């Protein structure tokens, strides 16, 4: 957990954005990190194999692609928690679901290519669980960075 060699660290800290759109991008990006083209390719492959990078490439923005995303929260009675988690997770539009320490103890993200599906899925979950679903759509985005330093 969290053990990364110096090459891995240089790649993770230095390459979270700005990968060149040129014919030999690994050569160019490697030069900035003090790595050869092949060292960078191999280093990225090793980080992916180790699961330390989810992947290497474009991070697509679902909303700009014409889809929609909405965060939602439910206060689930603890005795029903696992059963409700199964009901919520059964919807393919539910991308992430987290248990959190709060009266609103279930937080999930609904995403769809069809924006009209968002409200429909939230209504289906309310009907299936009999619980109030609090929709928390994004009103303004101040920053989405996902940057980490290792």
């Amino acid at each position, binding site marked *: 957990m969290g053990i990364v060699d110096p090459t891995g660290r240089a790649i993770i800290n230095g390459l979270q954005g*700005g990968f060149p759109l040129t014919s030999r991008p690994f050569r160019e990006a490697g030069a900035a990190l003090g790595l050869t083209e092949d060292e960078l390719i191999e280093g990225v492959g090793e980080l992916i194999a180790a699961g330390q990078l989810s992947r290497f490439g*474009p991070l697509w923005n679902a909303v700009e692609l014409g889809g929609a995303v909405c965060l939602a929260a439910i206060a689930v009675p603890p005795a029903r928690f696992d059963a409700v988690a199964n009901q919520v997770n059964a919807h393919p539009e539910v991308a992430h679901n987290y248990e959190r320490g709060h009266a609103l103890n279930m937080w999930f993200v609904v995403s769809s290519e069809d924006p009209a599906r968002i409200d429909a899925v939230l209504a289906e979950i309310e009907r299936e669980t009999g619980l109030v679903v609090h929709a928390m*759509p994004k009103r303004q985005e101040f920053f*989405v960075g996902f940057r980490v330093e290792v």
Partner: protein
Amino acid sequence: MLDAIDRKLIAATQGGLPLVREPYAALADQLGLPEAQVIARLQDLLARGAIRRIGAIPNHYALGFTANGMSVWDVADEEIAEVGAMVGALDAVTHCYERPRHLPLWPYNLFAMVHGRTRDEVRSEVADIARLIGPAARAHEVLFSTRILKKTGLRIAA
């Protein structure tokens, strides 16, 4: 909106770029397009914000950032643009959004996600945010995730 070629490009790169010396040429071969067209399309999608960035997508958990705190703040509506921009600029904050309140249960309208190696590290970062915001935040809390119930990525069909 996306055309058919954009959708093919998304489908071909959702799992990542080919790890070869000429990744865009490899993609171009796969899609039956000239390399220059693949590069130009990606440049355009990046400029339009359809691609947020190209590069390493870290797995926070595998890198030891196992504490994930959703810090939430009750900020006066007229101050939220300024406060949100300030909080979003912090290195420790990975996402920062304005979302609606659900009174009386949920008075918070500013969400700032903080990742750390430990809960104490996250709490200390949240304390820094509290000092930065000052009296503009009427109340705040940090909600730690105690279990991941589901996690799947965005999937767009070709």
